[in-house]
């Protein structure tokens, strides 16, 4: 238990009196990659948003521990500084904010929190360069405004590039595969895989099994109607892909929880 990165215990949460998560339990240890799969409306994105600290969700029960600390008590920026990273399903365009400036500011906030010296502009560029190559981002990318005018694929690559730069201990990837063509999917997955370490963990949230042929999870969880109804190894994802979510739902009706 000492190497638990994330522990979600009986989490119930929702928006405006509508309960979306109805008692989620999940344990992620260092070195593990978990996938949460589920049909639309099952609460996948809500889970990701709550982990990142988005306002507007009400947690009614349960707790979330990040490295033993109460994650829900932390501001979004504090979570990020402590090593939690959300790769957004819909990365936000921020006109007028230079990508290099943005990411250097973020990195330095995180470095400060880790007791590391801040990087100046030159050091940052040197640091970022290899990682840009890994994500096949063009040289001029850092000069552009954050996500402004980026294609869908560029936005997702940018998320993983940020993840590479910020080196989180817990990365939550929210529908990172949506909108990607097969080449971009490979680049993005390859990036994610190369960021796997023995001391960090990844939570991949997806509707489709497709992504999980590139990012091989250690555990797969199926989220339906706000509950994890089934957990298993990577083969569960394949089974789900061939048999569909209907199979799980029917199964649920047959054997009430």
């Amino acid at each position, binding site marked *: 238990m000492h190497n638990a990165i994330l522990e979600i215990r009986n989490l119930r949460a929702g928006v405006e009196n509508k309960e979306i998560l109805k008692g989620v339990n999940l344990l992620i240890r260092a070195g593990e990659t978990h996938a949460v799969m589920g049909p639309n409306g099952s609460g996948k994105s809500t889970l990701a948003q709550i982990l990142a600290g988005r306002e507007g969700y009400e947690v009614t029960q349960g707790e979330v521990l990040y490295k033993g600390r109460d994650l829900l008590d932390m501001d979004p*920026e504090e979570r990020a500084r402590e090593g939690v990273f959300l790769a957004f399903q819909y990365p*936000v365009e921020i006109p007028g904010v230079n990508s290099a400036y943005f990411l250097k500011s973020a990195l330095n906030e995180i470095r400060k929190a880790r007791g590391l010296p801040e990087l100046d502009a030159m050091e940052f560029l040197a640091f970022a360069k290899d990682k840009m190559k890994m994500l096949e981002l063009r040289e001029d990318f850092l000069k552009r405004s954050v996500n402004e005018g980026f294609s869908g694929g560029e936005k997702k690559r940018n998320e993983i590039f940020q993840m590479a730069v*910020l080196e989180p201990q817990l990365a939550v990837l929210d529908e990172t595969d949506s909108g990607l063509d097969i080449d971009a999917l490979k680049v993005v997955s390859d990036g994610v895989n190369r960021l796997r370490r023995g001391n960090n963990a990844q939570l991949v949230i997806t509707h489709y099994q497709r992504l999980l042929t590139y990012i091989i999870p250690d555990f797969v969880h199926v989220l339906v109607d706000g509950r994890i109804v089934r957990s298993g190894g990577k083969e569960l994802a394949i089974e789900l892909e061939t048999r569909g979510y209907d199979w799980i739902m029917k199964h649920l009706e047959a054997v009430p929880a």
Partner: protein
Amino acid sequence: MVQAMAEMKASDPYLARFEDTFEREGASHGPAWLYPIRKAGISRFAEIGLPTVKHEDWRFTNVAPIARLPFKPLLEPTEATIKLDQFHFTNLPSNRLVFVNGHYSAALSSILPQEEGVQIGSLAAALANDGALLQNYLGRFAKADENGFSALNTAFFTDGAFIHVPAGKAVREAVHLLFISTASEAGAAIHPRNLIVAEGDTRLTVIESYVSTISAAYITNAVEELVIGENAVVEHCKFQEESRTAYHVATQHLHIGRGANVISHSFAFGAKLSRNNIRTTLAGEGLDCILNGLYITGDEQLADHHMIVEHAKPHCNSHEYFNGILDDRSRGVFHGRILVQQEAQKTDAKQTNKNLLLSDDATIDTKPQLEIYADDVKCTHGATVGQLNDESIFYLRARGIGIETARRILIHAFAGEIIDRVRCQPLREELDRMVWDRLEENPHL
């Protein structure tokens, strides 16, 4: 008699002051030809007085507090030792003309060697020396009948900048006009008058800043005429950071010739109430004119920009970009009128006014107005009013950037849309830093 006294008009103190100054003392304030111009100014003022909110063009900006102040025009120079490096842009390489309470200070000014024929100096001196040239320009573009403030300026101005760039010449370094107010008396009135003539094929950059060393209810009432010739390339940047207790009213007339390329910026950060009337006449074919502005207000400040862009000739482009950032109980006013004359075919006129409200009590009145008499033109306008984007703030926070910094980054980016258009690089960089520093110093503007 008693009745006549009871009916004393609001304009009377101004008229009495005019008589004292210009009719008893004679022609001490300029050449003989100037007197009728002044006289026309004061007569016009007697007729119309200061505007009230009943005037459509002043509907959102109540200048009654100015009208209530005693009227004390500062007609004589004041002695002052002032450290200039406390003001922005004084470290930029530039020709610098410094005016203290509206009067030229030779001691504080410095002018670099110029190409033959280029004149950069005080208007009062130019009036004393070279009346003939000035007579062709002064008061021809800024009509005294524009409004009561212009009329008062025409009646009472004593000094300001005079820049004359003869055809084909370039002024390499920017000319910085620095207007410093040290007036501590309520109602002290400073009437700067600038005349800038850039003839055909010239290059000129002018920075014009209005600042103060004290906090007082003085008023700056400036009038400026910029006459820009064919194919001239001119950048003009007005920066207003008057005392937060002061009033600033300015009327700026740009008369632009064929093929010229002109960009005029207005940065309105200071004053309790500021009003910029910008009148642009696109008087030649195929020219390009950009009006670019940023107002940042807090407390109970009011910043008003009132533009008229007149397309008089075909094939001209005019763009207006104004962004406002308003906090606390402050107010912004944007009025942009585009007038396209019948002859001005193929006009391309654009206007955008974007506003960021940082408080529930801040307000903006924005009013586009298109008046088009030509049939083959492209005119667009758009105005937005909004708050900081929550999604953007969350995105920045989710990367470890604190909420206050995230807000600053976004406000700065919004200001940056305007600042980025400044072409003079050191000026642009200083403006950018200034906005950032201001945001860092104070979460409220």
